[in-house]
């Protein structure tokens, strides 16, 4: 029980030490994280930029909207291309037609195979990310498990406190019981002695009384002379005669 008490007190000191350590380190961290840290902007991975028709940035369309409305960019594209073609800045030679057929094949390929390929590749990306994260996730889970274990251990240690209190109470009860037992014992012993004294006094008185009586009787008997005895007997006979007459 003493060791348990020692463990309890040492635990409280440990927590105090831990608290002190935590505050110390946090203070150190605060010292390290002086003014520059707050202004640092860490680059984050972006989401892919929005595009239309597979490759034209959405921002280019947005730039038109304030001035021309939603059809503006298409009108601009159409008029520019008619200008380029009609003035033969862009020349429709043989490569243009081969490019046109290639474009049709590309568009068909992208429309037909694109979603499937994207699905497969997205799954691969997710798998790779999951694999990279797995160690961390497992580590976190195991740490959380050990935290739960620790909390449970602390909880059961609190149970030990109740147990110790119960044991203390038990010991107090035992002490009380033995105290009362000894009290009763002492009472009994004193009473016995007093009874003995009383009995002794009684006996002494009784004996002395008897002795006195015997002494008195002996003296009285000794003081009776034979004449007196004779007279007495005569008197008795006379009394008996009287009684017989009556």
């Amino acid at each position, binding site marked *: 029980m003493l060791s348990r008490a020692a463990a309890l007190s040492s635990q409280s000191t440990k927590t105090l030490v831990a608290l002190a350590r935590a505050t110390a380190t946090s203070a150190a961290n605060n010292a390290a994280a002086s003014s520059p840290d707050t*202004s640092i902007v860490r*680059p984050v991975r972006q*989401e892919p930029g929005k595009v239309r028709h597979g490759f034209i940035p959405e921002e280019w369309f947005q730039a038109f909207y304030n001035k021309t409305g939603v059809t503006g960019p298409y009108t601009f594209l159409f008029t520019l291309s008619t200008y380029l073609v009609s003035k*033969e800045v862009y020349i429709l030679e043989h*490569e243009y037609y081969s490019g046109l057929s290639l474009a049709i094949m590309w568009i068909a390929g992208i429309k037909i195979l694109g979603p499937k390929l994207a699905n497969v590749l997205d799954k691969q990306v997710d798998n790779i990310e999951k694999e990279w994260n797995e160690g961390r996730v497992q580590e976190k889970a195991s740490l959380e498990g050990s935290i739960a274990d620790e909390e449970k251990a602390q909880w059961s240690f609190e149970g030990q406190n109740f147990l110790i209190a119960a044991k203390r109470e038990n010991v107090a009860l035992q002490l009380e019981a033995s105290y009362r037992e000894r009290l009763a014992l002492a009472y009994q012993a004193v009473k016995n002695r007093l009874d003995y004294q009383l009995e002794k006094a009684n006996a002494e008185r009784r004996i002395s009384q008897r002795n006195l009586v015997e002494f008195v009787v002996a003296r009285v008997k000794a003081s009776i002379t034979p004449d007196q005895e004779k007279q007495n007997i005569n008197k008795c006979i006379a009394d008996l005669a009287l009684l017989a007459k009556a």
Partner: protein
Amino acid sequence: MAFGDYPAEYNPSVHGPYDPARYYGKADTPLAQVKLSELGAWIGRRNKGPQAIAGAISRAYWRWQHKYVQPKKAGIAPFLHVVFGGMGLFYIMNYGKLSHHKNYKYH
């Protein structure tokens, strides 16, 4: 500043990890917000040395990389950018030869 060095203005303790798409010098007014009357002064303030031009192109390239190539689930857009950019570039490069294929004399 030699080859392979970070820009002179870059300070890891202030700026954090190096971002090749970011300009670490003092920011000027963006070109889109410059008024026409201030345009001359704005161009005059530009650093037009070969190193600065190379840096500007590099930042633009990395901005494009971050936006279209490096995202986790990038689409086909960057590939098509290269295709159409290449088409335009080679059209301009070959324009002298292609112009012989014009179909009309007068426009």
